[in-house]
């Protein structure tokens, strides 16, 4: 059974850390202000606005130690990753989740943080939040940012989106898993490879070559991750690139074709993405996915 961390109350503390790429402090300021407006305390780690001169927000040891400290500190009630980029995979095997498992808290992020979500789901068995990170707050408050507030305070979410011509209708209740497609493919074969059987899987990606999305979908399929799904949610696949000789298919057609043989419900263009449209999704929690000809709904059970 998956453990659900306690929801946050006013006065609780949210820690901000950057487990992957570098982030300037001012880029998180709007986020900090908003979290405080929502009534939370904010504790900012040294990896945010660090002195790092390279890609990362700090050395592996600095990023690991800060994440570890926030996982273990009982006065921190949720951990919001400042941004993604690349780097969680470099420290994941060195993190100790013993204390965290006893006193779980919400870990929030997406993109590279997919590694952390997969690890928490598979090996720690604690639910986590796939949601906007600090930089998303720079666009001002919107329904997607609000969805994070609702999620961490325990309001049950109901998301809906418009129908898409590739959708397959259906109505299922299952645990939700997923994240960034590149990372899910990358984790295949490792200890953080998630079992998707009878689950609702969601995927999103940014800036990939279309042929590479095709290859990653083949990898998911050939490693058995698409066969026995309860349902599939396809989020934004934004800023896709094409080869000099056109691949000949749009990215959604690539995905649709990889799962043509399966009959579970599928929806496209769900608001989970690297763009503004990115609702908070609780990984490991049961949702009802209702896809009809006129509407798609994802409701927390």
């Amino acid at each position, binding site marked *: 059974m998956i453990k659900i961390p306690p929801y946050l109350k006013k006065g609780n503390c949210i820690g901000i850390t950057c487990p992957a*790429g*570098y982030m300037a402090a001012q880029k998180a300021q709007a986020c900090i202000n908003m979290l405080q407006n929502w009534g939370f305390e904010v504790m900012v780690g040294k990896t945010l606005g660090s002195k790092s*001169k*390279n*890609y*990362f927000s700090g050395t592996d040891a600095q990023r690991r130690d800060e994440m570890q400290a926030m996982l273990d500190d009982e006065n921190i009630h949720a951990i919001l990753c400042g941004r993604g*980029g*690349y780097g969680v*995979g*470099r420290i994941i*095997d060195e993190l100790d989740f013993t204390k965290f498992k006893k006193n779980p808290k919400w870990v929030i992020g997406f993109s590279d943080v997919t590694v952390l979500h997969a690890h928490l789901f598979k090996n720690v068995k604690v639910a986590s939040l796939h949601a906007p990170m600090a930089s998303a707050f720079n666009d001002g408050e919107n329904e997607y940012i609000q969805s994070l507030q609702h999620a961490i305070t325990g309001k049950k979410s109901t998301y809906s989106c418009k129908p898409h011509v590739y959708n397959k209708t259906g109505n299922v209740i299952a645990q939700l898993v997923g994240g960034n497609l590149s990372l899910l*493919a*990358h*984790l*295949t*074969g*490792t*200890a*953080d*490879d998630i079992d998707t059987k009878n689950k609702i899987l969601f995927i999103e990606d940014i800036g990939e070559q279309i*042929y*590479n999305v*095709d*290859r*990653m979908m*083949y*990898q998911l399929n*050939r*490693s*058995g*991750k698409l066969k026995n799904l309860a349902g599939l949610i396809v989020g934004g696949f934004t800023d896709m690139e094409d*080869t000099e*000789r*056109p*691949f*000949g*298919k749009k990215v959604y057609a690539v995905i649709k074709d990889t799962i043509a043989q399966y009959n579970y419900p599928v929806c496209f263009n769900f608001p989970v993405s690297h763009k503004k449209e990115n609702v908070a999704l609780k990984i490991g929690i049961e949702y009802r996915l209702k896809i009809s000809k006129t509407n798609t709904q994802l409701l927390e059970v």
Partner: protein
Amino acid sequence: MKRKQFISSIVPLAATLSAFAHGKTNLNIQNPTAIPPYLKPGDMVGICCPAGYITEAEIKPALLKLNEWGFTTRVGSTVGKKDFTYGGTDDERLQDLQQMLDDKNIKAILFARGGYGAVRIIDRVDFKKFKRNPKWVIGFSDATVFHSHINENYRVATIHSKMCNSFPDDWSKAEAMQKETIESINLCLKGEKMKYLFSPNEKNRTGLATGELVGGNLKTLESLAGSRTNIHTTDKILFVEDTGEYLYSIDRMFWNLKRSGKLEKLKGLIIGGFKIKPDDAGEAFGKTIEEIVLEKVSEYDYPVCFDFPVGHQKNNYALKCGVIHTLGVHLNECRLTEER
């Protein structure tokens, strides 16, 4: 004579060659791969496109060279076919390859080029006849799918080498390195015991190791993880190469190798060419290829060498995958030698 040239010209330090000797190694290799029959003059080489598209004109130089080597050729129906980036639809590419695998008159299949597409058809290829009558399957890059799939599921040796699109239009004007690498395909096919000498890199980890050679394109290997084409590397010498990837992405791929258990029980690790996509402005990754690799293997003690002449580059020599090799990484010289 050709062979002598081949060796001497890739040896930057020709003087001290026998730092170690290779006698018969007493190897207890379980489940060794079958070695397809080597080719004789008059044998037929088939050419097909399991992935990207190529024109008939583009494979002419390869046909000429194969004929010069004494082989006849069969040009598959996918050569000149085009379905967007592919050399024909999935069905067309599958059918062409299947026909060549099954045709007893074809003794080797040389892929025209890589690109992307092998994984789209691999699960539908029937290797039954091939398993009974193995033949050489030749290519690299996207063809890594075939090397892994055949090694893992059918235990047959394959050749990792340049493909038709790398044969120079005008042989007389080609540089020596280009000619040698292409000649190395001929040597492999005719059963020469292969030997590769290459310059040491100061970051190499020295040592001597013997094991089955496997590997290929790193991105492709990663994309096969978790599938039935996933390569097992225990007691093997692994070689990897890649092109056009960011350093962070290369780092991530090596983590995949490590975390999926592919680096732990190696006999040796060979790093070929890595054409790196420059970091975006202000996002310097801050680690070299050597650092990326060495930090992943620091707890192991097998030999590791860099700059091996394999990759998306001119110095890309033909390698027999699935065949036992000895890797000697020394301070003053490095060599990879096929064992018999």
